[in-house]
């Protein structure tokens, strides 16, 4: 490898890991919902879009930095997610129907409503937040003068990544240490047993959907300084979240983090070495390869007890 090739490779790797950190956050929300409720939330990306619009308007109207909006959009999204679970999905569970996938189709309907309401209110324009640090970056040569290769680290990407890691750690503490977290894990492992142990399963479902939505909402705020925003962006992120969930092993939180990093690196490698437009195809390749060669996802390699099943 010549120095230039090495530089390109390392730069791509860094970009991929940073992207992967954010992807992991999106995947975590979905895997949590999937693990506890065994349903797939196809409105996941749309919830992220809602959070991005909240952060965007906070910035435009009140000049609140998107990173601070994490603390505004996450609770809002928590309430929105909890309301969706309480008023739409919970009643749905009682309804008799031929296809069990009705729940999935229901979330598609919710996603459609969210995406099109956004189009209705905000038009389908592409928007971005003009934060002043958007183009600032750290360079390797700033720290190491004699460096043979040059690498850069974009400031917003780095900050987003650090935030994502922080939120992930906070989630881990919540699930491992608090009573609510333990109840959620109990519900995921065995709903009936949890019910017998006095866990309010219905409430836990509402809380879990809220947390899942809050997580993806936080991810949306972190994406805003580095990505552009338009009403129909949800769909692609729903797919990304889903691929990560499969890649990580269904319902596994650790798997989702590793899955997110793998997907981020793979995608940025595809973009560098094959072409920008092919990234979604690369995603599907990862997905199919995982289904065929590693049906249990990364979690089955970790040989850890799965988070739910």
């Amino acid at each position, binding site marked *: 490898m010549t120095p230039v090739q090495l530089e390109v490779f390392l730069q791509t790797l860094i970009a991929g890991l940073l992207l992967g950190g954010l992807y992991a956050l999106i995947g975590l929300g979905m895997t949590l919902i999937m693990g506890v409720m065994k349903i*797939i939330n196809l409105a996941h990306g749309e919830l992220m879009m809602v959070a991005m619009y909240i952060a965007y308007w906070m910035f435009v109207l009140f000049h609140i930095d998107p990173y601070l909006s994490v603390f505004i959009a996450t609770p809002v999204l928590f309430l929105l997610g909890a309301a969706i679970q309480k008023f739409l999905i919970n009643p*749905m569970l009682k*309804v008799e129907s031929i296809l069990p996938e009705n729940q*999935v189709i*229901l979330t598609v*309907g919710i996603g*459609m409503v969210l995406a099109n309401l956004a189009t209705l209110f905000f038009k389908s324009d592409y928007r971005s937040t003009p934060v002043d640090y958007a183009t600032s970056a750290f360079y390797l040569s700033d720290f190491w003068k004699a460096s043979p290769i040059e690498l850069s680290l974009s400031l917003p990407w780095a900050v987003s990544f650090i935030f994502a890691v922080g939120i992930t750690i906070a989630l881990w503490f919540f699930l491992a240490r608090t009573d609510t977290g333990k109840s959620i894990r109990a519900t995921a492992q065995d709903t009936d047993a949890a019910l017998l142990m006095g866990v309010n399963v219905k409430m836990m479902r509402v809380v879990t959907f809220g947390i899942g939505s809050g997580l993806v909402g936080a991810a949306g705020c972190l994406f805003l300084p580095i990505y552009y925003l338009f009403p129909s962006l949800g769909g692609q992120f729903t797919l990304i979240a*889903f691929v990560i969930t499969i890649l990580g092993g269904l319902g596994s939180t650790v798997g989702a983090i590793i899955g997110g990093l793998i997907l981020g690196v793979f995608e940025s490698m595809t973009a560098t070495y094959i*072409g920008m437009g092919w990234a979604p195809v690369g995603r599907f390749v990862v997905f*199919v390869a995982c289904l065929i060669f590693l049906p249990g996802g990364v979690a089955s390699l970790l040989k850890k007890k799965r988070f739910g099943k």
Partner: protein
Amino acid sequence: MTQESAKVQKSKVKSQKSIPPYPTLIILAILAVLPLTGLSSYMMHIFILVIMWAVIGMAWNLLGGYCGQVSFGHAAYFGVGAYTAGILYSKLGLSPWWGIPLSIIVVALFSFVLGFIVLRLRGPFFALATLASGEVMRVTAENLQPLTGGTLGILVQERTWIVKTWYYYVILAIAAGTFFLVKKLIESKLGYYFVAIREDQDAAESLGINTTLYKTLALCISGVLTGIAGAFYTNYMGYIDPHVAFALHDISIITIMIVMVGGVATFWGPFAGAVIMVLLAEYIRSMPGLGAAHQTLFGILLIVIIIFLPNGIVGDFPKLKRLLGLRSASQ
């Protein structure tokens, strides 16, 4: 078995009655003489759309309703069929009409390969894998510029007919073929195999049903019928691009909505759904200043239907009557 699931069982069995052939024939006869009454070009357009969507709905219902494999990616088959016709015209200079017979072969091969990948998944995971496959086909069509013309799409300049009547008869013939094929299938042993797979795949397997074979068969037939509709679409509209032919919301989701609204696993469901959805879409479109509103309304309609009429208008017809107060609640 709980009381609730017993009720579900009953409603499922009901949908397996054999379908009397006369209503189909009468409806086809009425539809066949319809253009003679001198309808406007716009009305013909609506009828063509309704019949095309009924075909796609029936195709989806065969796989999703009867076989229980809920596909979110029927745009993949629709688009492959549409592009078969389009590429024949743009690359080989053949009439796009050849796309209809040829799409049978192309889409059959395509759905066989895709089925090999996605059919190993169950339930919601199958649904999501199909969703991804539709999106991947869209991106592929966008990126394979030399073959598909990329995002610019393919414009079929030699329109065969100006008058809509002949297009109407073509799609009516396709629909008639589809209706009788689907009717034959669901009344045959194969149809019962499909339902057995939907109800309990493991039990079906243990009874000696080769579930992989029948699921693949259902997917291929469903895909091919959708692909034929796609090839027709290219001929009728004269223009396709990846966003039109592989549209997630405008094809895949609308297909599901048509079947959900009409009635999953009912023979007449897709007709009813197609009529309602196309008319609703056209009505909302005719009102000024409601651009994105129709998708919003569709979304709300989907949510309402799933919660209140989970088996669709045809499947839950007695319940619907009761809700509308047409029949006393005791019945």
